[in-house]
């Protein structure tokens, strides 16, 4: 194959990459240097939006730290529950296939529709959850208490996305070599020791991948917040992506929203790289 032929094969992919990835990023950067909103066009205003973001917008940083809390909490819970479920159906148990499919169902449903259903469940005066709990003298404010509203968001996120973690971890478990387990069995290792010293270390690379993928996804929590609480009560469940959505598509401050998006992208790239390094160091130390 000569030099020119190589480019003929390379160009289509390159064009697609430029069209769907490089161009939007360049456009977002350009947009972030403008005051584009409902009354101004794509004018150039330099770093004004970034200065505003770093010096005069505590709401963005509050929403970022809230997002960090929500995404780390949900991913840890998803990992623990997902691992437990995957471990359960990895073994030869009755109705193994049924459970494998059952645990995947939440992931197959449409997030927005399921969140509407969860919102109905947690509706404080008309929902079935409080209807049942009222028999025990309880009526928690699932959506209107600043702390409990966060818990509700976490419950819905964990319910929706644990199956994804389950699927990756089950695939990992099924691909593990049999020899280490046979050796552990010959040595008379208890199930707990087997899990701690064989299964868990062998699963570390898959676990790191699964956690990072979920962290990337969880850091974009938007639909759940939008449908469940609209970021309320007050701003207690407002996440970065929801805040950017409000500024960009509700208030039409496109330039400012672009500067937030770009800043957010940079922060996420740095923090996820650091997290991946830390996880690798912790989980693959041996």
């Amino acid at each position: 194959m000569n030099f020119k032929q190589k480019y003929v094969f390379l160009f289509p992919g390159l064009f697609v990459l430029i069209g769907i990835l490089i161009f939007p990023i360049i456009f977002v950067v350009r947009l972030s240097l403008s005051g584009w909103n409902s009354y101004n066009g794509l004018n150039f205003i330099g770093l004004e939006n970034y200065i505003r973001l770093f010096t005069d917008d505590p709401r963005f940083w509050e929403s970022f730290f809230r997002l960090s809390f929500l995404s780390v909490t949900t991913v840890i819970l998803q990992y623990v529950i997902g691992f437990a479920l995957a471990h359960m159906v990895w073994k030869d148990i009755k109705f193994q296939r049924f459970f494998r499919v059952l645990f995947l169902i939440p992931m197959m449903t449409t997030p927005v529709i399921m969140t509407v259903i969860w919102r109905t469940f947690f509706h404080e005066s008309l929902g079935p959850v409080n209807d049942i709990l009222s028999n025990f003298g309880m009526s928690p404010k699932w959506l209107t208490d600043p702390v409990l509203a966060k818990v509700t968001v976490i419950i819905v996120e964990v319910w929706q996305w644990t199956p994804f973690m389950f699927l990756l971890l089950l695939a990992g478990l099924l691909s593990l070599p049999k020899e280490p387990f046979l050796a552990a069995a010959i040595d008379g290792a208890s199930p707990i020791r087997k899990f701690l010293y064989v299964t868990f270390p062998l699963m570390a690379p898959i676990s790191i991948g699964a956690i990072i993928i979920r962290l990337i996804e969880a850091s974009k929590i938007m639909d759940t917040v939008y449908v469940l609480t609209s970021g309320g009560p007050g701003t207690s469940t407002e996440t970065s992506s929801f805040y950017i959505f409000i500024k960009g598509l509700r208030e039409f401050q496109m330039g400012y929203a672009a500067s937030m998006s770009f800043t957010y992208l940079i922060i996420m790239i740095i923090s996820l790289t650091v997290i991946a390094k830390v996880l690798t160091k912790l989980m693959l130390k041996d």
Partner: protein
Amino acid sequence: MKITKTCLSAIISGVLIFSPIAYADKWSDQFPHIKATGDIPGDCSYEEMSKKNYKGKTLKINTHAVPVIGQPTALHAEQFAKLTGAKVDVTHTPAGDLYAKAMVPFKAGQAPYDIVFGFSNFINDWKRYLAPVPKKYMNSTEMKDVTKSHIGVSSWDGTMYQYPVDGDRHYLKYRKDVIDNPEMQKKYKADTGKELRVPRTWKEYGEMAKYFNGWDWDGDGEKEYGSAEVMKKDDLMFAAFFSRSVAYAKNPRTPGGFFFDLETMKPNINNPGFVEALGDWVEATKYVPPGGINFGLGDEIGSFGGGQTLFSFSWDDAFIAAMQDDSPIKNKVGAAPLPGADRVWNRTSNSWENQYNQAPYIVWGWAVGVAKKSKVKDMAFDYLCFFSNGANHQADLAIGNFGVNPFKNSDFDPNIYIDTMGWDADIANSYTKTLLDMEKSKNRVFPLRVPGVFEFTSAVATGTSKALAGQLSPQEALDEVAKEWEAIVQRVGKKAVQDAYAVGVKMEDNKL
């Protein structure tokens, strides 16, 4: 005797055949939506539209999600297509995205939709991209019936950009079977020492709502609550807050701006009048149904319309829902002006005036315009004229979740509601009187219609929701809003906001 009978029946048959009722039946057979009235003659009636031929042409409409305004848009699109042969594509969009869905292509110089639905307070941002309503439609029989204030709401400096299809104002809805019930009045007097009556002030509203909160006062086996209000952040809550603020902050003796001081463009939003209103609203979180601070408009309609609360205030929809045939509280509700206050803030003298004040809030409503770049403008305006023709409009008014409310002079005739909707006469009378009095009031507040209006209202929603959630005190919350408003004015440009705001102030000060 037999001859007399025959003659009489011949006369009656003749009258029926040649009268407008019989003429209307021709259309109501095909279009059951208008069965109560039949076609009503006019420039955009069914009869007139059937003479148009738009075969081979496509009309594209972006409207709200079903049902509110989305359902009538789709229904009238279907009827219009049947009558004219046009193809009508209707896209449904959530309320929060209506602005951006039109604005993004507008800014990019495109017109993917011929007709765009939105809120009347979009007018300042949208008017550059909308075609003015042509003279032909301005002079139509349908338009001549529109009230002066709704012509004003749809126009900018004398040019109409939004076609009137809806008229909105906030007013009080209450359970008549409780407030007017002598036994309840006696009980309330005995327990509180006060009169149970339609609340004149927000303080009275709060006292009554608190008293009737959390017990089964209508004997249906379920607990009822004090008030249903739109308190969910980013779900029109800013409008509910302004409704509560007008009594304390719209002083007829201090013209020159309710939201801002027109001369200096300093926000009034954190003055003691607004703070008092927000204090009342924070108190209201104690007498709304469980989860009430997460109620959007749909929840409010369902809650009051379903008989869950004593009071509610906002758009007509909750009242109409309560008066529909399938409602458990049909003919048990009353309409009244928004409560007032025993004192009103004077921003000129910086002091409270201890006298009763009440101010109607002519809140923004559904509005619709035709894109300037549309290639089928005639057809688009014909559709809008047809949408709000007499027969469609009267039929739409009767359906609570259609979101179409009175904006024509003929809508204030109580007989419409008595004859076609089965309302009790006293309820129909109080309803039309409440609405009509707002039209006549000289102390009205109109919606904020300035460039970047969404930035201002979003700041109000954020600030007030922080106060409702207990994150900030009312004063702190509104100080934060005022600071944000000042920043927005700077960003947009003081002159641009001031010039636009002046148009609204003229309306409020009865100079337009």
